[in-house]
């Protein structure tokens, strides 16, 4: 037998095997092998904590292992791309966050909301401004007055240009409160900045800095929302000061847009069950991020509303 013949035989065997496999796959009930959960940010961050908390709970709901892997880079778009373009069999799901959606405004990533299916939203959180505990600015009113008196003097730590935090601060500058925004890319450095006295204010979500709030190193001064935050009801809301700007950060789960409807439904149900389970509630209460169950359609609308709002404000 010549080499070519041998090769053909091998290829033939492989192909026929895989045909059988495909047929078997179609017959088996979804899911019957591990599901990959792609986290679009690196270990240690908020998205990673979210996926690690979700994985065992979802695993119980689906009856198969849910394996987390971090596909990072390009403001989270690498992970989104991987999830949305992998084989549409429902075995690959992935995280998406408000930060990566806001990066689309800057032209990052090729895929947009229409190129993927939003299965569910797991975490929704308001953002807040934090000041060091010993800050001279006792209230948000003090801070606004100081910003008006000394434009471009008061430093605010943000995560980067063009995100929801930057858009918010630009909006406030338009209203006459001009802050100096200092982007700190690494979260650890951003948290250290107000504590070390390198900046006056920090824009963050409360869940990520809860230990510093608990240690009384920083305190929230205002919440960007039109209603009181359920975890910090005493913190004043920004709309009371005539500022109409509030973006909620969120973390959700997506999959490819060509995944069959039946699989989508199975995943949506399992995810909603997981997100409303007691085990997950422990996590989301700790991070002040609990939210309600949403259908696939609701989740899509939620994300699109977020994106459109951001787009509107950044154009102004």
């Amino acid at each position, binding site marked *: 037998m010549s080499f070519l013949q041998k090769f053909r035989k091998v290829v033939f065997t492989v192909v026929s095997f895989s045909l059988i496999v495909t047929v078997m796959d179609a017959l088996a009930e979804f899911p019957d092998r591990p599901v990959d959960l792609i986290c679009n940010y690196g270990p240690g961050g908020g998205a990673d904590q979210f996926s690690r908390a979700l994985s065992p709970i979802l695993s119980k709901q689906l009856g198969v292992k849910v394996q987390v892997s971090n596909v990072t880079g390009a403001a989270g778009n690498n992970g989104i791309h991987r999830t949305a373009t992998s084989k549409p069999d429902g075995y690959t799901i992935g995280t998406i966050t408000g930060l990566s959606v806001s990066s689309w405004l800057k032209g990052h990533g090729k895929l947009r909301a229409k190129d993927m299916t939003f299965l569910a939203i797991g975490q929704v959180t308001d953002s807040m401004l934090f000041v060091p505990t010993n800050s001279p600015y006792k209230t948000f009113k003090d801070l606004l007055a100081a910003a008006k008196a000394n434009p471009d003097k008061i430093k605010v730590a943000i995560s980067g240009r*063009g995100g929801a935090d930057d858009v918010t601060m630009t909006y406030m500058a338009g209203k006459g409160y001009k802050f100096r925004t200092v982007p700190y890319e690494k979260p650890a450095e951003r948290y250290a900045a107000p504590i070390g006295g390198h900046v006056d204010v920090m824009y963050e979500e409360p869940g990520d800095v809860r230990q510093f709030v608990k240690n009384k190193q920083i305190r929230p001064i205002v919440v960007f929302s039109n209603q009181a935050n359920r975890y910090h009801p005493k913190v004043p809301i920004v709309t009371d000061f005539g500022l109409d700007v509030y973006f909620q950060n969120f973390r959700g789960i997506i999959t490819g847009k060509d995944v069959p409807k039946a699989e989508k439904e199975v995943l949506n149900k399992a995810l909603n069950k997981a997100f409303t389970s007691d085990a997950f509630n422990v996590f989301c209460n700790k991070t002040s991020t609990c939210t309600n169950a949403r259908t696939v359609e609701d989740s899509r609308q939620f994300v699109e509303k977020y994106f459109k709002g951001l787009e509107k404000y950044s154009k102004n």
Partner: protein
Amino acid sequence: MLLDILNNLLGGMGNLFQLWNFGLLALGSLIGITAGALPGIAFVNAMALALPFAYFMSPVTAMLFLTGIYVGGIFGGSISSILLNIPGSPGSLPATWDGYPLTKSGKSAKALGIAITCSAIGGMVSAMLMIFFSPPFANFALTFDQPEFFAATFLGLVTVIAIAKGQMLPALASLFGGLVFGSVGFDFFYGAPRLTFNWEVLDGGIHFVVAMIGMFAIGEVLYTLTQNLKTNHRNLKGHTQLPRVKELWDLKTTIARASGIGCMIGVIPGAGGIVGAVISYGVEKQVSKRGDKFGTGVEEGLAAPETAKNATTGAATIPMLTLGIPGSAATAIMMAALMLKGVNPGPILFVQGKELVYTVFAGYLVANVLIVVFGLLIARGFSYIMRVPPAILYAIIIVLSVIGAFAVRNNIFDIYIALAFGILSYFMKRFNFPTTPLVLGLILGPLMERFYLTSLASYGSPAEFLVRPKTAIIMSIAGLFLVWSLWPSVIETIRRIRLKEK
């Protein structure tokens, strides 16, 4: 403070002697010494290959595993230096100068004994320095803002060049190559893609771990493939005889000097074991009474570089842990292992991650004790180790590097990047271009850019770097280094001009 440190260290020891932690430290040590002893696989290569395994360990365990390889590997090279006259790792080159002559005169057991004990002692001294110096320094570094971090990173880059001395231009070319590679991809301020040639896959930038795996694993495999390496391993006598206390006592001044030099060199970014060992050998040659006999098998000539190269280990880890600025390839790999597990080294780590830090400290101490145990074992089995068919070893190395590169971001494109860097490093090595500056440029460049831009956004003008007291001090040290490294070429030029005038 001192009591605090000792207390924490005790806790670290307790952590270390848990089954998994200690087991992996010991395994790392074994792998390190073996890899170090095998010509063609330096400990850095072994560390790069260990990364994929570190992905599924806890951060503490991964660090201990890598510590074992690092400390063991930097010693291991001396076994083949002494027995075969081939340095197993670059740092062991000076061990061939006085170690192999000892073997030739039939004293290989004694030479191995000296190498083992001196390495262990040097390593211990360095570990002590790290344990007692890092926490106060980290405390001090807590007050650093972005300009200070920028200055510290800048100092790191300058010393990389200063160390290169005779090879200034190639080292500079390599460094700037790394800096250019490091600026590929989105900038972190605006997210604008740079130097990507509209190629989406480059948007995320070139991850330094991927490049390092390519350079230190794949490049090495290619190099060995084309070398047709032939080693003869007849009459290898790996018996060892540890020196008696009196013999060691005679070497006490040598060991003290070499430990000091090793620790100092270790802190300097870009230097590493080889520089420490060679400088220590040079100093010893001048100071020792038997200096003129160096090269013929003098104990001091072996003890000095052996002590010094292991004395660089702990010291080199200080800037990585306290500032998050690695100064050598080995510590960069350790930092990568931490970062891939979501732990960010830096002053905050000494507040938030005390347990990890002190367990690693304990690991360094114990790893140096393990050198003695495993050093004896591996020296004895060395002739068997040399019989492992290299083809299989290198085939597995390629597969492991591909896994390692992939697992950094679970990205297939990173495999291509690693392979490309492997081929690049082969040619750099062939044309005698140092690869370490490139790696450090790739790591430190993005850090420096970030620190620089954030400083500007925060303080408004670059003058801030010279006005802030801490920054000014660090910058002037960097300036001194620069002058010191340029001095020889200045003198050279002056001399040449005078020659012409005559």
